[in-house]
Structure formats: structure tokens, C-alpha cells
């Protein structure tokens, strides 16, 4: 029927490593071997996929509707890229060296090797440029959650004179009026809490980005996605030079101690593939500012 049986799924691009050792992670289909194809200075990390399967209507439908399928495939995509980052050189400290990789967005498939080669050749200057911006740097993520809004409320009440005044006034009012005044006060406090929350988040972001060459605030993920009870109040990513990773982590830990007294906590993670800092110049990408 003239339809080629196998295509190539592309995970990421990295600089040529001359590392011939095999990947232990399986490909996106759960069975294909992951391997690299070299194009001059670049290496494309790919696996073979059945075109009959991956070019089918069924897959396009699953990718829109089937949550389990989406989860499984997104994780598979990520795992390959993480292995591509950490492969190659094992340092004397026992840690793997982190390679600069350009992660692809999910779902890019080439029907044949020649097509992939052509595309990489055409995009070579841009790819090179992106590699230059991330070389020797790592992406780390910091998320902040508001665990205890009452605690933050308490902190604000203690230092806000206007609120204290109002509370006194309410105590002297007849019961009915006091009820409504209290409702009003609650609103005022809630506004003050939001204001303080924004301040704290801003200060935090500013402190952390001192260690980074680039930083970005991403969308706040909703509870349905995080699966947490506490609302997320900051979702941020930082591109950090290798030599500053330790100071960044220390800063994050210190800040975490600080904000816990106000009802927050933060979590940092990394190194991530530099999803937030690999973008082709001049191309529209809502994730990038």
C-alpha cells in the first residue's frame, strides 16, 4: 500500500556525545529501543514507532480524550529525555554530568530518517543558538503553596492597625450590627491577605532569580492537576549556571523556613530538561516571556 511501516519519534536534541551506550528507558510505545542519530554536531534522540499505530485516527482520539493514555505517554516522553540528559559522563563525585538537551514538545514523528535530517539541517542555526543559551546551566523548578491561610491571616491581623481598630469597634456594637460589620471586616482581611500573599510571592521570586540567568513564572496549576489540598501560589522555573546550583538550593531551603511561619511552604525540583528556556527566537511561545 506504499505506507512505510516504521517512523521515528523525536524526544530531544543534544550536542554530539560520542556515547554509544544503550538507553535503558524504552520508547514512547513501551517497547522500542531508544537510540541516537548524529547530524554533524547534533544528536537526535529517537525511537522507532509503528506508523500504523501512531499515525492512526485512534491515537489522535486517545490523545484528546484518554487521560490514562496521556499520562502514560507524557511520562514516557519525559523519562527518555531525562535519561538523555544524565547519560554519558559519570563524574568522580558519583553524580552524572548533566548534558544540555533541547526537549521537543510531545508528539513529533518523522516518517523517515531523511526527513529528520533535513529538518535539523534547516533549523541548525537556531538549534545551535538555543544550545548556546543553555550550555552549562540547569532548569530548576520552585512551586509555592499556601498551606495555612489562617496563619497568614493571623500574621496580618497582628500588624494591621486598621483591622485592630475595627475589631474594637465591633465589640462595642449591638449584636445585629456587629454581625454585618464582622462580615465586612472579613472581606477587608481577605483583601489584605491577598495583598500580602502577592508581596511574599514577589519577594520570593526575586530572591531566587538572583541565582539564575533567566527565570519565568508559569501558570498556577489547579488543585485538580496537583492533587493537593493546598492552593499553588507560585509556579516558577529558573535557568541556573552549574556553579550556582548549590547556592540556589540553599536559598530555597532558607526561604522555605522563613515562609513556613507565614503559612506557606515551597518545593524545589530539578534538574529538569530546559523546557522553559528552550525556544526558537522569534517564534510565538506563550510559555516564554
Amino acid at each position, binding site marked *: 500500500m506504499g505506507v512505510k511501516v516504521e517512523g521515528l519519534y523525536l524526544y530531544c536534541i543534544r550536542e554530539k556525545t560520542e556515547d554509544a551506550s544503550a538507553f535503558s528507558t524504552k520508547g514512547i510505545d513501551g517497547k522500542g529501543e531508544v537510540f541516537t542519530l548524529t547530524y554533524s554536531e547534533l544528536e537526535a534522540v529517537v525511537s522507532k514507532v509503528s506508523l500504523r499505530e501512531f499515525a492512526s485516527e485512534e491515537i489522535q482520539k486517545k490523545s484528546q480524550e484518554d487521560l490514562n493514555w496521556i499520562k502514560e505517554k507524557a511520562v514516557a516522553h519525559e523519562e527518555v529525555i*531525562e535519561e538523555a540528559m*544524565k547519560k554519558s559522563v559519570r563524574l568522580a563525585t558519583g553524580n552524572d554530568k548533566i548534558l544540555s538537551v533541547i526537549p521537543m514538545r510531545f*508528539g513529533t514523528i518523522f516518517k523517515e530518517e531523511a526527513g529528520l535530517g533535513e529538518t535539523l539541517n534547516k533549523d541548525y542555526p537556531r538549534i545551535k543558538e538555543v544550545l548556546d543559551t543553555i550550555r552549562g546551566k540547569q532548569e530548576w523548578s520552585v512551586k509555592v503553596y499556601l498551606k495555612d491561610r489562617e496563619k497568614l491571616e493571623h500574621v496580618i491581623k497582628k500588624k494591621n492597625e486598621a483591622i485592630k481598630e475595627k475589631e474594637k469597634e465591633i465589640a462595642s456594637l449591638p449584636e445585629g450590627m456587629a454581625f454585618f460589620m464582622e462580615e465586612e471586616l472579613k472581606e477587608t482581611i481577605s483583601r489584605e491577605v491577598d495583598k500580602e500573599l502577592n508581596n511574599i510571592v514577589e519577594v520570593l521570586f526575586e530572591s531566587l532569580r538572583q541565582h539564575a540567568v533567566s527565570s519565568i513564572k508559569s501558570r498556577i496549576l489547579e488543585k*485538580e492537576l*496537583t492533587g493537593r489540598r493546598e492552593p499553588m501560589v507560585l509556579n516558577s522555573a529558573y535557568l541556573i549556571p552549574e556553579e550556582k546550583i548549590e547556592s540556589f538550593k540553599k536559598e530555597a531551603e532558607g526561604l522555605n523556613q522563613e515562609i513556613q511561619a507565614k503559612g506557606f511552604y515551597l518545593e524545589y*525540583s530539578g534538574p*529538569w530538561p530546559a523546557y522553559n528556556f528552550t*525556544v526558537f527566537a522569534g517564534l510565538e511561545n506563550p510559555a516564554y516571556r
Partner: protein
Amino acid sequence: MAQQQITHAIQATNLADILERVLDKGIVIAGDIKIQIADIDLLTIKIRLLIASVDKAMEMGINWWQSDPYLSVKADAIERENRSLRERLYRIEKKLKTK
């Protein structure tokens, strides 16, 4: 340098992190075939639908409907009623006091 193990991103964080990055970010290169995944907003809605009952949602601390613009139209009406009641009460209590 006192270096501990590198945190494995997948272990250390939620699946949400991966979905956010893999589906929304990363370089887009023109391949022959593109698997287009539902965007993250749509995924959120789907997950909401899975959380079938209100009780279950409350238990998980999910109360997004309280800030839902459609539902909060009602909240506006209540707010107005509250205000007029408050004014009435104020007048009544004032009258009682002056007697």
C-alpha cells in the same frame, strides 16, 4: 563539595509538572506527523468531571465553583440583599437606641 544525589525530577514532583512541560512547552519542530494532545485547560476540566461528587471534591479541598463566574452571579444578588438588610437593621437599631 558536599553533593547529595541529584533529585530525580519524576520522583520528586507531581505528574502535573510533567504534563505542564511536555504538553505545553519544549521546542516544536515540523515533523511529518504531529500527535496533538488536549491542552492543559481541557485536561483540568476532564479531571474535574472525574471527581464525580461534591462531597468527594470538598474532601479533596476543591471548591472551584465558588469562584465560578456563572455561579457567582447568584452571589451578587445575595450581596445586594445583604446590603439592604444591613441598612434596615442599622435604622432599626438606631431607633431602638434613641427611645
